[in-house]
């Protein structure tokens, strides 16, 4: 159910009035949960098992963490193991339950149905850790379980095949007769092995809650429905923005204030998002697809322009989704965080990342870069941490060498330009436009690896960009005109002429233009690029 389709329009036309009708009851939250689960289940009902499992586990883990002393305590292991003497009844129940469940799972892993054995082996390891967590009353073990569980799900569904294929390739090169089984053979009951839409987003969101609780940044959420809604809130479930518990959870504590501005803002955001997706991203995608599907058939100008076009396509596609998500949330009365802030106006790579996919960048900053040491350990360590963060960010985007290279390039870029960007010369003497053009050129170059179908294709494109003949790129004038218009609008936004855009007639004119353009020129639907991540 994509935002720009009729089924979603009907879904929203049902969810929204009922949600508001329930504002004086306690049912608005269950309604939101049901709507979110329905929305996610629409894609594939089996996905619900996964999101529900992840939600229940993290909810319970934090509850158990809450029963552990903050500073740790000395545990009489003997008394606990022999006499089941625990200071906390919940932890005792958790230990007994986990131990018993682990025993059952081990039995199933050894003697159960063949199709169930791999899943049971993995689960029994996890439950064993839970028993240890209860036994040691350790917050750290509970956190570890959450990390392992969420990342294992992500790794299995997103990266397992990539890893297996590459390892099997290495084995074959070394003439070893061994080979790892395809991950699909590990699925229980013969379920289909496919990447659940949005898994990277909801696992990160759920994970942020457990980490933040561990760090003392949020309090425990005791209402399961509230937490479940936080994990699978339908506007941002598929492709973010990745919300933080301390921002979104409090908004579910009481029915949001009903204001006319919620509707006008929501409609404004939704319209802009719709325009970005249907009028711009889909159009650009047509040109990009043709060139990138057969890069050898095109000359250097077409390859360069298609790469630039892709840079805009992915921005419009992803930020269009985000705008629509924020618009829908706003219609319901909730505020989602900003995810894009005109990134192609950035005058440094660091700034680019503070404007592009902000919720993911800040997630990596808070949960990877800073725990690694951030910029506290001197310049070499800062660079190392930056590089690792961008490298992991690249991998987060997908299981392919092209994403690894994309992340690496950005890591290197940020490391190399960091000092330059901080220098007085760069800040004061280099014209802003030149800085923006430089950042745009670098980012566009890295998009080649992001978009290419394979690594050899990416290398062909890079090679041909510099060596192929200069042929007519045949990029439509209309496309160039639209891009120029958008770029001009963005420049005005950050200039002293911004007041021009704030004038009522201009706002109305832009909105009317968008609706008419959509009615006359928009084509088809098409899924969002970031759904695959």
């Amino acid at each position, binding site marked *: 159910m994509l935002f720009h389709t009729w089924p979603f329009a009907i879904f929203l036309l049902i969810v929204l009035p009922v949600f508001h009708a329930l504002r004086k009851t306690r049912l608005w939250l269950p309604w939101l949960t049901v709507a979110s689960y329905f929305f996610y289940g629409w894609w594939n009902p089996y996905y619900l098992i996964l999101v529900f499992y992840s939600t229940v586990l993290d909810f319970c883990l934090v509850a158990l963490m809450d029963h552990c002393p903050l500073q740790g305590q000395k545990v009489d292991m003997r008394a606990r193991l022999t006499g089941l003497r625990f200071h906390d009844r919940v932890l005792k129940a958790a230990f007994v339950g986990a131990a018993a469940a682990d025993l059952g799972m081990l039995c199933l892993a050894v003697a159960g149905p063949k199709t169930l054995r791999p899943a049971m082996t993995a689960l029994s390891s996890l439950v064993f850790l839970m028993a240890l967590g209860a036994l040691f009353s350790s917050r750290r073990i509970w956190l570890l379980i959450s990390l392992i569980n969420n990342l294992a799900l992500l790794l299995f569904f997103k990266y397992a095949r990539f890893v297996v294929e590459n390892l099997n390739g290495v084995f074959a090169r070394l003439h070893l007769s061994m080979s790892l089984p395809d991950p699909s053979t590990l699925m229980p009951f013969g379920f289909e092995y496919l990447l659940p839409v949005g898994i990277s987003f909801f696992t990160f969101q759920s994970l942020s809650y457990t980490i933040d609780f561990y760090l003392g940044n949020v309090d425990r959420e005791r209402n399961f429905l509230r937490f479940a809604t936080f994990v699978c809130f339908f506007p941002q479930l598929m492709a973010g923005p990745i919300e933080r518990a301390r921002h979104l959870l409090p908004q579910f504590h009481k029915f949001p204030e009903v204001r006319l501005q919620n509707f006008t803002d929501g409609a404004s955001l939704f319209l802009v998002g719709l325009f970005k997706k249907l009028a711009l991203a889909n159009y650009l995608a047509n040109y990009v697809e043709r060139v990138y599907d057969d890069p050898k058939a095109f000359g250097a100008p077409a390859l360069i322009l298609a790469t630039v076009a892709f840079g805009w396509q992915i921005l419009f596609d992803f930020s269009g989704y985000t705008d629509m998500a924020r618009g829908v949330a706003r219609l319901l009365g909730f505020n989602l965080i900003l995810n*894009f802030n005109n990134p192609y106006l950035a005058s440094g790579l660091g700034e680019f990342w503070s404007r592009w996919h902000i919720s993911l960048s800040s997630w990596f900053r808070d949960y990877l870069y800073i725990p690694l040491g951030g910029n506290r350990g001197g310049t070499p360590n800062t660079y190392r941490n930056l590089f690792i963060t961008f490298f992991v960010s690249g991998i987060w985007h997908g299981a392919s060498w092209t994403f690894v290279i994309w992340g690496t390039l950005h890591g290197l870029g940020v490391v190399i330009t960091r000092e330059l960007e901080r220098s007085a010369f760069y800040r004061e003497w280099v014209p802003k436009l030149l800085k923006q053009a430089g950042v745009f050129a670098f980012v566009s170059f890295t998009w080649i690896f992001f978009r290419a179908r394979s690594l050899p294709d990416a290398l062909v494109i890079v090679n041909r960009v510099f060596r192929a003949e200069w042929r007519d790129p045949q990029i439509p004038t209309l496309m160039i005109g639209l891009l120029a218009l958008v770029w001009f609008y963005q420049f005005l936004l950050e200039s002293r002429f911004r007041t021009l855009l704030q004038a009522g007639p201009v706002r109305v004119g832009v909105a009317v233009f968008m609706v008419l353009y959509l009615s006359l*020129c928009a*084509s088809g639907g098409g899924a969002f690029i970031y759904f695959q991540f």
Partner: protein
Amino acid sequence: MVRTKSARIHDTPFVNEVRLDAPQWIVALGILAMVMLLTPVLWKKLERFEPGPDYRIPYALSKDYWFYERCLEQTTAANVVVLGDSVVWGEYVRQDGTLSHFLNEESGQPGRFVNAAVNGLFPLAFEGLARCYGGPLRHRKVIVHCNVLWMSSPKADLRTDKEQRFNHAELVRQFLPRIPCYKADLNQRLAAVIERRFTFSEWAKHLQMAYFSQKTIPNWTLEDDGGNPPRYPNAYKNPLAQITFTIPPEPAVDPERGPGSPRHKPWSTTGAGTTRFEWVELDQSLQWAAFQRLVKLLQSRGNDVLVVVGPFNENILAEENRRGFRRLRDGVGDWLANNHVAYVVPGTLPSALYADASHPLTAGYQLLADRLYHDAAFQKWLARRGPRPPGDL
């Protein structure tokens, strides 16, 4: 009560200035409503469109239902509108070789019989066309062609489970009765149901059909020539210059149609032998059920309906297959008679006058028109006082 530590929740930040408040939305919606209501109406005055006596919807505009409705609006109470699929439209013939042309010749009144057929139509879509776009036909005399080819097999009847892609899918009933081979997703079905209610949306499709090779404007700018590497001849063209405000007429010389075309030849000369069709049972046929609903719909709209059944090319049928065909044809006739619908079942034409199982050649249409026009039932129907709009005494 334990409260979640929270970051300060700001209002939704905007990074553009397209943030309209309520009065601005009202103004914007007002402007949009005016534009959307007035444009299609004004367009009819601006766009040149002159149907001659033998006019038929150009092949390229077969799916331009807004234009189809506009053509129907041009008909007068004195016209007899001939509805049908490619048989009536004239798949192999020029517009001066169609059934309506020869009926006009027979009657001696050019333009009396109007060719309002659409290429690629079939009863399930035909019903939708009449229901959604046939409003201007109210209280007219209409001839409806019944092509039994659509009941010649479960596949033609769209009853098989295997997915089929067919023309005019937007016109068929999207939900009930279910068409087993129609596998469009929910969004496509809803779009078909909802968008046809918006005249502006239909008009926008008209622009695409008439001026942009049946594509959206952006897709038209990227239309390739099929070469390798492809070339995009429209890339640098100004899309607005395409809009000439003139409906492109049918080409004067159509290599695909007319006596001069290589396709215009008897079916038997193509090397095709006789065929066995898997005739479906009428009471189970989706197409026949749709045809019945179509006739009822037209009657409910005050139309004086005459159904022409066939003439199907019996020469193409294997001997043992003809009995099934005749049973089906007779069943059609029985239902029409039982429902007091005027009908004619013209005899099969000579084999050499058919291009395939159902389409006559130019001489075939001439003969058919001659037979029809001199048929007593046809004459009786034609002479019958036409339906009157309510209030017209």
